[in-house]
């Protein structure tokens, strides 16, 4: 695989994770349980859109076909997206959103801590900025998961249910293919085998503190590395891309 191809695909994965989760979180705007939480969730979303912008811009430069971050965000279809299945899952209730956030933010904390030392200077710079944001995202999600797990009977039931339902999407976070292997050899990408035990330990500790049960590692969903998604991504893209699809190059 040519180095450019691998790097392009890898950058898209990271950018797509940030973009799709940003879109999901923005759906909470004006619906959160408290106004403060409404602001918190949209803050998270804005952090992620910033990261998506930086990464997709870089992807466009790597590919060298003159695509901007906007072209990549709004003119690709479902099969050309490489975000993890976890981040495209619908918001569900608040517990569901927080469980999803806990899983992905813990992953991103360890992931970007490694990437900060990448030989690719752009990745290292984006990682340094992202880390500050992700630490906050994780803290926020962790506090809520503990609060709900250790809260009322209903909040405990809801957060345990969310953890159980989302668990099958966590295995995919650590999948690696030739793209990863190529770039790990060059000191560019993060070795996911190395961060998996850290993630397991962290999540195990949080769930224990929250009086929640860590689900069994049973069947794990897979597909996003090949651009195969759950049915939810198509609907999300319909909404997110509507304007640019209906009125190409519309500006305001």
């Amino acid at each position, binding site marked *: 695989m040519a180095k450019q191809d691998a790097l392009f695909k890898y950058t898209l994965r990271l950018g797509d994770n940030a973009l799709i989760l940003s879109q999901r979180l923005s759906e909470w705007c004006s619906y959160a*349980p*408290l*106004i*403060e*939480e409404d*602001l*918190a969730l949209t*803050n998270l979303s804005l952090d992620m859109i910033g990261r998506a912008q930086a990464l997709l811009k870089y992807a466009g430069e790597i590919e060298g076909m003159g695509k901007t971050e906007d072209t990549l965000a709004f003119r690709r279809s479902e099969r050309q997206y490489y975000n993890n299945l976890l981040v495209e899952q619908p918001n569900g209730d608040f517990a569901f959103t927080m469980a999803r956030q806990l899983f992905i933010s813990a992953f991103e904390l360890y992931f970007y801590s490694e990437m900060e030392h990448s030989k690719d200077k752009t990745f290292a710079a984006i990682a340094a900025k992202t880390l500050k944001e992700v630490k906050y995202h994780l*803290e*926020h999600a962790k*506090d809520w998961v503990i*609060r709900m797990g250790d809260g009322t009977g209903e909040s405990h039931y809801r957060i345990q249910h969310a953890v159980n339902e989302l668990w099958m999407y966590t295995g995919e976070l650590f999948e690696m293919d030739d793209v990863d292997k190529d770039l790990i050899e060059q000191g560019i990408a993060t070795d996911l085998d190395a961060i998996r035990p850290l993630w397991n330990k962290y999540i195990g500790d949080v769930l224990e503190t929250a009086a929640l049960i860590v689900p069994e590692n049973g069947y794990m969903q897979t597909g996003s590395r090949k651009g195969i998604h759950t049915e939810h991504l198509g609907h999300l893209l319909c909404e997110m891309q509507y304007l640019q699809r209906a009125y190409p190059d519309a500006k305001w």
Partner: protein
Amino acid sequence: MSTDTQLDTWEVFMQSRAGANFIHQGSIHASDKKMALQNARDTYSRRGEGTSIWVVPTSEIIASSPDDADMLFDPSNDKIYRMPTFYTMPEGAKNI
């Protein structure tokens, strides 16, 4: 059971730069200290306004009553000799 789902209120004070006074920004809802700090940060420092935050439970603030305004504040209004501008500088005085 209370039907108020909005949690307790906290007053938020923020410092815009090191050494500056903490200025009251407004109030937020939260169930504990840490959540209060996070909510204050999310509500009042989204555009990089602050370097430090204080949060105080609203119930811990002791406020004067508007009814006491006459007693507390009026007496100072008619005593102009309490203002430095009441005193005229003697002409030619150098070391005042």
